[in-house]
């Protein structure tokens, strides 16, 4: 028999018993809804963390001075005087290193326009915006020339620009750092807060050479930001840097620490994968429960409609026609249940996201999984009742009271 005709018969049978059909679907609706809702919320949270991690820059390796595990160095990363500009130059020559910036950090009071503001002053190389994946909103980054000439050039973050130049474009204007006039050559695009809740836009960036000679008088850098060619070579480059610096420093103990953003990312993805397995388990259990509900009702339905089956067989329905009819009924039940569940789950996660101000993402793959598994549940749970119906003897079925 044609599928369309079967669908018509199925939909009529289901509409005839609306309340029962709804209750039958409830298992699948709740199962699919719960899974889609939970997946949407956890995926949203995971994506938020991932965004913040990639916000740190792409394929970035950071070399800190000092070794966290060394007993003597209690000043924290970046405080020990162990990394030099020569180290930076040597690392630059390693294969797969595409950009590098030695970093010196300081806090200072900066003045402009008769206003003042306490902010972080960083010394960096012109590669810095590329490494951090950070756009310049107006103007440009200072140049290598500026680094060589210890130029008094500065690029400022959005927060500093807003605080000191509320009504004008700061590019071309002057900012005073430790009483030295620096010319603003660019303003960075807004980047927001980092994973640790710090305002990344509250910053002034100057050439590292100017920082080390004019603002502070340092011969060591706090850290070195390195960008690797791609994510596949990150571990390799990390190892090369470690080997290189160990050789250069000739110290017994490792006096630096090499960390990559990849490690952070792996932690995040491992967590979300564990969450995914958990949800898949919940999904499987709830769909099995939903399937049992459907099978139960289909068995009742076959018994109730024994006479109808007999009539259909008497006018020429083959066993396969009856089988298909009941299978389609079961699949329709679970597919509609699945669809309502998906809509409900997405709606629920949107509502929670709206009320709790959380991000929510419903991955397409989970929608596909929900659709496929509810169809499969329909087929599996409908098959036995449908097979039972199709095996009925026409005369016995017609006589059934």
């Amino acid at each position, binding site marked *: 028999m044609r599928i369309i005709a079967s669908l018509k018969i199925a939909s009529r049978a289901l509409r005839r018993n609306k309340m029962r059909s709804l209750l039958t679907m409830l298992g699948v609706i709740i199962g699919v809804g719960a899974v889609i809702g939970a997946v949407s919320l956890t995926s949203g949270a995971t994506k938020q963390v991932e965004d913040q991690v990639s916000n740190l820059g792409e394929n970035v390796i950071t070399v800190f001075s000092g070794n966290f595990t060394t007993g003597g160095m209690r000043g924290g990363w970046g405080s020990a005087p162990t990394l030099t500009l020569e180290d930076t130059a040597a690392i630059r020559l390693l294969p797969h290193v595409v950009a590098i910036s030695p970093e010196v950090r300081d806090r200072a009071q900066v003045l402009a326009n008769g206003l003042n503001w306490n902010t972080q002053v960083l010394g960096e190389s012109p590669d810095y915006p590329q490494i951090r994946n950070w756009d310049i909103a107006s103007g440009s980054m200072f140049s290598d020339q500026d680094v060589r000439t210890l130029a008094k050039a500065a690029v400022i973050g959005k927060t500093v620009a807003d605080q000191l130049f509320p009504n004008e474009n700061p590019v071309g204007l002057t900012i005073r750092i430790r009483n030295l006039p620096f010319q603003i050559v660019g303003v960075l695009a807004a980047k927001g807060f980092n994973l640790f809740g710090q305002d990344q836009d509250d910053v002034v960036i100057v050439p590292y050479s100017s920082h080390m000679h004019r603002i502070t008088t340092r011969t060591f850098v706090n850290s070195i930001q390195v960008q690797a060619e791609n994510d596949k070579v990150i571990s390799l480059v990390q190892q090369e840097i470690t080997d290189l610096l160990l050789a250069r420093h000739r110290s017994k103990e490792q006096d630096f620490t090499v960390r990559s953003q990849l490690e952070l990312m792996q932690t995040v993805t491992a967590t979300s994968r564990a969450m995914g397995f958990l949800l898949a388990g919940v999904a499987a259990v709830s769909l099995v429960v939903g399937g049992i509900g459907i099978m139960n009702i289909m068995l009742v339905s076959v018994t109730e409609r024994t006479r109808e089956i007999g009539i259909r067989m*008497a*006018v020429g329905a083959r066993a396969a026609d009856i089988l298909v009819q009941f299978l389609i009924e079961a699949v329709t039940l679970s597919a509609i249940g699945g669809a309502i569940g998906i809509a409900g789950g997405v709606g629920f996660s949107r509502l929670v996201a709206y009320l709790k101000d959380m991000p929510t993402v419903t991955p397409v793959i989970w929608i596909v999984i929900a659709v496929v598994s509810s169809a499969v549940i329909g087929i599996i749970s409908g098959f036995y009742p449908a097979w039972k119906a199709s095996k009925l003897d026409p005369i016995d079925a017609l006589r059934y009271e």
Partner: protein
Amino acid sequence: MAGVSRAVVDLILKYFVQTNPVIKLDAIQKTYHTGEVDVHAVRGITLNIFPGEFVAIMGSSGSGKSTLMNMIGALDRPTGGHYWLDGIDVSTLDRDALADVRNEKIGFVFQGFNLLSRTSALENVEMPMQYNRQRIHSHEQRTRAQQSLELVGLGPRADHHPNQLSGGQQQRVAIARALVNKPSLLLADEPTGNLDSQTSIEIMGVFQKLNDQGITIIMVTHELDVARFTKRMVILRDGKILTDEAVQNRSVADKELQRLRQEQQAVKLAS
């Protein structure tokens, strides 16, 4: 003897008019194996039925009428003997082939109507066409179902559900459903068993009209009054044919109805 005269008629029909029987039963048997004892419901029936015949199968309760009809209707398989329907040996067909035979060659009418409840008359009549091996366009299904309902005088009630129809009307829907696939054979197992006498005569009128149009009809009944509307009576006893003869003084439904109405009129006038 009646059986002998019938055999002569068969021979004449076969060799001189050159018609083949619609139904040819050759020593058909049906034995039910239930528990300890075997029930021999039908024990060797040989019978030919030709196109255009209108046959009543009679006999007391338990004489094997329904068992025989179910085998003729391809709902059941004989345990012995052979059965040819339109020249096809039905006794050897498998389940699916039997379903196809029921769909294409046979229309069955039951005592209990056997309509789908909460389904309109039109949709009930459309149902056999859903199982046709050749696709029938849904538009054509509708038209044919409507025509079939008109044939039994129920055209205006096409969208009524069974519970909105009287017993006689429900049986007409069942007849329309049996006819919709243009079968070679219309079978009816006690079609008037659940109906009052006037409605029974109306249904017999429908059958006589269909038979006049050339449809072959076999009907089970245990009422002589009903059997008298047919052309030939086969009486069974204990699963065998007792007599098989043409109906003398055949009743005509239109006349019987007229007579019934006059009687009712007279009763009304008298009271």
